């Protein structure tokens, strides 16, 4: 692998990523107890604010932060997943189509989970809204799990450290 470096993730994208991950973990560990209800609600507000920012940044951010850069199509996704089984998996500098799908799923579920959580906190929607909140939040947990597996698998397949790239913003060009 060449040692040439390429800048991929701008600072706002990286800050968003780790802040969202933190707010999700906080919301998750405080879910079961009324003792932590205030912390849980604050984590939800933070998460909603972060997602609002990301939706905005997806249009005006730097190249690889923009939705247009990684909009997943069924065709892209098939080609990419198929190439993972070959000796030469298709490489993307920005988000690969599978990662892109996880991002849109997380943003969508995040909107639904924070929205239904806020409505529940306002006593609107009753038990149905509680259930919707749980289903969407558990959906997020599932996508996060798939995302983590994807990060490990893609890092190995492409011989790059995706976690470090999301911290420093730089990837080795291959």
């Amino acid at each position, binding site marked *: 692998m060449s040692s040439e470096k390429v800048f991929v993730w701008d600072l706002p994208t990286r800050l968003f990523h780790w802040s969202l991950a933190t707010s999700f973990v906080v919301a998750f560990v405080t879910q079961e107890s*009324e003792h932590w209800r205030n912390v849980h609600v604050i984590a939800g507000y933070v998460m909603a604010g972060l997602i609002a920012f990301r939706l905005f940044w997806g249009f005006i951010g730097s190249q690889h932060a923009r939705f247009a850069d990684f909009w997943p199509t069924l065709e892209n996704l098939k080609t990419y997943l198929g190439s993972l089984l070959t000796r030469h998996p298709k490489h993307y500098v920005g988000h690969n189509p599978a990662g892109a799908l996880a991002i849109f799923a997380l943003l969508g579920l995040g909107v639904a989970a924070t929205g239904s959580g806020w409505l529940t906190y306002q006593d609107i929607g009753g*038990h149905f809204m509680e259930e919707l909140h749980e289903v969407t939040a558990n959906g997020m947990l599932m996508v996060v799990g798939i995302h983590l597996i994807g990060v490990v698998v893609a890092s190995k397949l492409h011989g790059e450290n995706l976690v470090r790239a999301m911290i420093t913003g730089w990837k080795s060009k291959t």
Partner: protein
Amino acid sequence: MRIVLLVLILAATPVFADTPRDFLNRYEKEAGAAGNPTRGGQFFVKRHGGEWSCSSCHTENPTVAGRHAKTDKPIKPLAPVANAERFTDTAKVDKWFRRNCNDVLSRECSASEKADLLAFLIGQK
């Protein structure tokens, strides 16, 4: 045709058709003893080693609205006589017993504790 209609009506019947008494019966059966309303009332206002009792949020009178001990948000009355929605949905009852018992007792409530509590709440006038 009539059978189809009947099936449709049954399928459309809400699954939360339980009554508070159904819950009492279920817990009494699991506990193997009748619920004791006096014991349920004591259980309700007593602290169980933690910071809160049930009454910390639901007040000592379950026929009136309570207030969340942390967020100060209003909580609808717990006694079925004051709030007909209470103890009519198994999923909701199971979930909130699990959450609230863990907050108050740091464990799940036993079937006999739940039977006592239901006997106490149903006995409210």
